[in-house]
């Protein structure tokens, strides 16, 4: 369980998830192994139905493994969830429409077993500034653009200072320009907070641009195809996407995906 750098942030050992219904059973993930060190940035890439989201849900304790083991910060995922070590960002911002941006960011501080223990938690106002939404604290979600709503969701995920940030295609529904901006900001936030990030995406350039490593998953059943390292130095400006190294990694991922 321990690695040279100490306890792993996330470890999956032969994790299998099978969903059983009246019409039979579907294997979403089969024998998946993954080790993510603290502070790491790993993207999960693969075709639809390869179990990317299921893998994230395993770590978030939203799904339990049928077989195998999932360890988060050296313990069961449930403990990490109760201790507020996990932040989750969904594809839809999933803001409560009757709460202002600030009130949405504050939600994690108002619910759950550790809500009275505010010490060491970040101020919602500061987080809105961190995601570039200073001045829009009192706007309701329907008054914000899609990109702004997603920024609020990121601020909300960060408010309890989680050690692991789980992001399920967070920028999938956004236009490309907004997506680029948020990619750059996510890297900045990652470097500032030192959070471990697991990031699900459909986009090859996004995966290469953001991550240290990309886990390519194959479908039917969902399984690991390959773990690809993105050896590009940080900080990465958007222009890194035109370098030969970037293009080489992207083509390799594309080739891998074609055989998934």
């Amino acid at each position, binding site marked *: 369980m321990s690695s040279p750098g100490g306890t792993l942030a996330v470890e999956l050992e032969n994790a299998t998830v099978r969903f059983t219904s009246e019409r039979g059973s579907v294997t979403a993930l089969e024998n998946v192994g993954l080790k993510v060190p603290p502070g790491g940035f790993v993207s999960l890439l693969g075709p639809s139905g390869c179990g990317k989201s299921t893998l994230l849900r395993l770590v978030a304790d*939203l799904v339990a493994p049928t077989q195998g083991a999932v360890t988060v910060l050296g313990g069961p995922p449930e403990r990490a969830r*109760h201790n507020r070590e996990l932040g989750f960002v969904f594809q839809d911002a*999933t803001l*409560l429409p009757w709460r202002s941006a600030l009130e949405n960011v504050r939600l994690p501080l108002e619910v759950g077993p550790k809500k009275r223990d505010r010490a060491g938690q970040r101020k919602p106002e500061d987080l809105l500034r961190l995601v570039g939404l200073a001045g829009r604290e009192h706007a*309701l*979600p*329907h008054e914000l653009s899609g990109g702004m709503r997603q920024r609020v969701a990121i601020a909300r995920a960060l408010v309890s200072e989680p050690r692991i940030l789980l992001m399920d295609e967070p920028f999938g529904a956004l236009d490309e320009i907004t997506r680029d901006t948020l990619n750059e900001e996510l890297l900045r936030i990652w470097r500032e907070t030192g959070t471990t990030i697991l990031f699900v995406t459909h986009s090859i350039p996004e995966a290469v641009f953001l991550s240290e490593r990309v886990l390519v998953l194959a479908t039917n059943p969902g399984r690991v195809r390959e773990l690809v390292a993105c050896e590009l130095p940080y900080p990465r400006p958007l222009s890194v996407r035109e370098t030969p190294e970037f293009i080489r990694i992207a083509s390799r991922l594309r080739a891998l995906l074609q055989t998934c």
Partner: protein
Amino acid sequence: MDEPRTAVIAQPAAVARGAPAPATLPPRRSRSQALLPFAAAAVLVVAWQVLAQVFSLPIYIAPTPIQIARTLVGELPMLMRNFVPTAIESLIGFLLGNAIAIVVAVLFVHSRRLEAALYPIAVFVNTIPILAKAPILVLIFGLGMTSKVVIAAFICFFPTLANMVRGLTSVNPQSLELMRVLSASRAEVFWKLRVPSSLPFLFSALKIASTTSVLGAIVGEWIGADLGLGALIIEATHNFRSPLLYATVFVSSAWAVVFFAVVSFAERRIVTWKQGEVS
């Protein structure tokens, strides 16, 4: 809460300049459009007056608007004396019926078994026409105001129950996952997620109930009452006092409209967000 609302209302100017209208923006009615129903009503009233005079219809068949207005003014103290009990009955019935419906909806949401056992009975009772239910309730609760309150409460109960159950259960599944990631307790999910989600549904039901509670009180008074707009309607009809009948109908409608307007106003103040927004 006020500031963002003004910001939204101010946006049609941008629409006029050719900027794309945000999908969430409701079409704003201009002032002339808001006056349209009043103009149409005025035309109808004038046409009624003219036709009644041209064909010189007898007053007990079709009183003219002027005759009705004269009765309305002349009989105002008597109309008000009858209005007060109806207003009280419908108001208390409204509060009682909706309060019980909300409590039952909460119980149903927390116990599927209770819902399975009692919901079909609620549906069955709801299928009994109010005209059949009213005499039964008058037999049980007597000829006083209690029976009218109970009838008004009954008529409010079912729409609110059905809407509230739907509102409390129609929570965005992803919001529920979010609450699970946050390890929120059942009570926290209820108060911070289910209750606010249900408010738009609740207000749809309350708007229906605001007018039907008046209907319930009047139907109750038909069965037997000394005082009240319902009793006055029966009396005026039997005595062929058509202008009084019409004036009474006018007063009861005006009360229902005011009631509806108050509930709508409360809705606009409380439900400030956009319904059905996935965000």
